[in-house]
């Protein structure tokens, strides 16, 4: 437990709005990063951010310090993200891809290229690799995707991931193994 965070939580539970804002600022960058990486859409990431922290705001009084605040927050965030991922699976939409005159392109590539005066050859290769990775990630179940995201990009230990997702470390391990096997299969000669 972090004493500074704890005191912010207690103050926010007493209705101190500045403390709540400070608490949000401690965690919100990693929440946004998680949502962006999972959903690859600034609009969806923005919705997740908003919904997650509003849920925290409404339910903070129920937080009893029986787990870390990080775990509690991430349970909320991962639930919202999993819902989004499941909806996408059902709709079979690829929200991360937009149609352009050059064919379907990962919308994050478009975003990145606004900033970069990119080398065309490198851009083409990156785009192909990116599409292959998107396809590989798209083949994962929402739960495998989440475990992989939390371990690879967020650096959480599998035990912590199990706590966040309400499962065991062993189950998280199996998810991670399946996810990497699937991705290695899809990426094939690219790696």
């Amino acid at each position, binding site marked *: 437990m972090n004493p500074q965070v704890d005191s912010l939580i207690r103050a926010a539970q007493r209705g101190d709005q500045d403390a709540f804002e400070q608490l949000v600022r401690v965690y919100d960058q990693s929440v946004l990063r998680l949502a962006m990486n999972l959903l690859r859409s600034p609009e969806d990431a923005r919705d997740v951010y908003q919904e997650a922290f509003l849920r925290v705001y409404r339910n903070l009084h129920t937080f009893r310090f029986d787990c870390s605040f990080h775990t509690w927050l991430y349970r909320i965030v991962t639930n919202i993200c999993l819902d989004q991922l499941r909806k996408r699976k059902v709709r079979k939409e690829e929200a991360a891809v937009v149609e352009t005159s050059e064919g379907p392109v990962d919308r*994050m590539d478009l975003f990145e290229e606004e900033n970069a005066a990119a080398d065309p050859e490198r851009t083409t290769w990156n785009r192909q690799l990116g599409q292959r990775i998107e396809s590989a990630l798209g083949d994962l179940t929402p739960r495998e995707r989440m475990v992989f995201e939390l371990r690879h990009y967020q650096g959480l230990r599998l035990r912590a991931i199990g706590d966040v997702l309400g499962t065991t470390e062993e189950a998280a391990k199996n998810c991670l193994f399946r996810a990497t096997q699937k991705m290695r299969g899809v990426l094939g000669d690219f790696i």
Partner: protein
Amino acid sequence: MTCESASALIPLYHYGELTPEQEDTLEAHVHECGSCSQAMDRQRALARALDRREVTAPPRLLDDCRGDLFAAIQGGATAGSKAFSKGPWTLFLEALGATFAGLGRMRQPLAAAALLAVGFFGARLTATKTAITAGGVAQPAYTTVRSISTVGSGKVEISVDDTTRRIVSGGLDDPAIQQLVLAGSREDNAAVRVESVGLLKDRAASGEVRDALVNALAADPNPAVRMKALEGLRPLAGDAQIRQVLAQALIRDDNPVIRMQAVDLLVAQRDDSMVGVLQNLVQHEDNNYVRLKVAKALKDMNASVGTF
């Protein structure tokens, strides 16, 4: 250990999730087994490829999200209410409705969203920091008619947005003034951003100013703004996070003058972790001056210009 069981452990090994005994056993097997050694290499290659696909949130998105959230809370979200039933966007739009009626759905291109974030900050200052008006002089209001409808008996009902302009004066040590200057650094008007960032650049010791300078350097479309932000970050060039931002500017900024300045700041102190960035850059840099500068910096660091 069989190849099948080794294969199951390789991803966990990569992520440091094995016990020391399991690691030893796997390492011994991989050392002896060519195909598992290749599988280990593929695992590393996969991780590198995925690292390259990591998405960084656009710098202004975080500000926008915070703006949405705090506006929603101020606009009616209640803490601890189990009866809470409104969606976040509803709350956000309601909150905006009170101050910026008619701006409509927020899911617009980022530039528009950033403008709204500025609007939010402005509204927030007006609503909560009334001391700021002490030195202000009210100017005539701008009026926008949003809708007109007839209500019978020859009368009409007109929905009107009033925007007022005030002149606020004060020193940069005044937190309220500093907040306005920070809001100015995100304005649509490039001239306002240049002035704002120019004023902030000597105050990078403050976390909020530092964030604004980082955002400006990373994402402002105007090179004059980015140049001023870079100047402001100069005293912090030893900070690891700032060095990452400078390295990004070096790789991504399309303005060679900014890239030159970024090289200067990055090589002002010895940092071997920058060698790879510089070596990569020297291979792809299309500006002769920048390329020569980077090559010289590598030479000064006793590093080779090429990569192997």
